[in-house]
């Protein structure tokens, strides 16, 4: 791959041209397909994966265009940091949050499609009117090397925007800290308060461990009670609503272990099992 990229980079001969063209079309089809899939799939995690495909395709294109620094920044900052941040927040907010199909504004999708088509036509017409010349050879810009050239520009011509960028990043970090900070509205519970609450709750012992006396000892297997029924207290409540498409794994208190609750019933039940204090 690096050989091909290097060849395309310093290109001029016919084979290099063919290599760049081939890679471009593969990447173009992949990125447009992934972008379309991104706005069509319903689950947010799949959107993030599609976005990763687009970003990696664009990184390869930057490398082909004689921008190796930007290619690596794209992979490290975008695919590495920004996309991981997206996934992180996605996991915090709830991985099962899928978009609903119902349109809240009537005809919104049709209007959006029309607006997109109009924007596309306008932009393509603008490009058609512009005089876009042939590409200069990659070596024209990268005379002293891509990195040294960029560094020279950033620290001479663009030094003021660069400093402003630093201020922006600091402001963003402060803003994120302020926004993500949760104010403590109630006094913090002491150990004495916790002990009193536990005594008042009526359950002194900890919850049973999952998998006790059951066939499997996985964390999502409820423990068996002496009468053969299962205890949903033994399974962490976060395991139950995690995958709504799957057959529910947590069997309700009092049912036989062999019988699984049916999906309809499970979907309507609260996120926290009855008999357990919601946090």
């Amino acid at each position, binding site marked *: 791959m690096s050989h091909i990229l290097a060849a395309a980079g310093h290109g001029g001969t016919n084979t290099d041209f063919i290599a760049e063209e081939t890679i471009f079309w593969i990447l173009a089809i992949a990125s447009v397909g992934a972008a379309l899939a991104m706005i069509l799939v319903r689950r947010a995690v799949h959107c993030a994966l599609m976005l990763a495909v687009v970003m990696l395709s664009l990184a390869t294109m930057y490398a082909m*265009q004689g921008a190796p620094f930007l290619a690596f920044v794209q992979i490290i900052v975008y695919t590495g940091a920004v996309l991981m941040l997206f996934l992180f927040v996605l996991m915090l907010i709830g991985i099962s949050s899928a978009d609903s199909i119902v349109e809240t504004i009537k005809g*919104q999708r049709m209007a*959006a499609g029309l607006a997109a088509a109009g924007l596309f036509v306008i932009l393509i017409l603008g490009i058609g009117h512009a005089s876009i010349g042939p590409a200069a050879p990659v070596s024209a810009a990268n005379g002293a090397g891509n990195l040294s050239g960029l560094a020279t520009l950033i620290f001479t011509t663009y030094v003021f925007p660069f400093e402003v960028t630093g201020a922006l990043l600091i402001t963003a970090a402060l803003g994120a800290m302020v*926004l993500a900070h949760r104010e403590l509205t109630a006094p913090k519970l002491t150990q004495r308060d916790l002990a009193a609450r536990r005594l008042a709750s009526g359950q002194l012992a900890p919850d049973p461990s999952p998998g006790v006396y059951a066939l499997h000892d996985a964390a999502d297997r409820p423990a068996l009670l002496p009468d053969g029924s299962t205890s949903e207290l033994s399974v962490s409540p976060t395991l139950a609503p995690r995958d709504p498409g799957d057959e529910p794994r947590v069997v309700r208190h009092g049912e036989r272990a062999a019988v699984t609750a049916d999906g309809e019933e499970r979907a309507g039940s609260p996120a926290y099992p009855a008999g357990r204090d919601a946090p």
Partner: protein
Amino acid sequence: MSPVHYVVLSVILFVIGGTGVLVRRNAIVVFMCIELMLNACNLAFVAFARMHGNLDGQVIAFFVMVVAAAEVVVGLAILMAIFRARRSASVDDANLLKY
């Protein structure tokens, strides 16, 4: 490879991203579509930089990346604050200013 190809590809990606912003209702997905639009702009910048044979376009693309990173950090923090208050990440549910 003519820069026109790259610019047209960037237009297509930009329009797809804009459509996503208009159509999708999960706020995180809306953010991802904005990222897609910014990436499309970067592709056009890099293509123009190559066409002109200088590095200014690449520097601008670099600045766009920095601004996008800052935007994502603040945006996701706002999103988490909204989610904490309203238990929803849908842009339809944040309608307190509507009536």
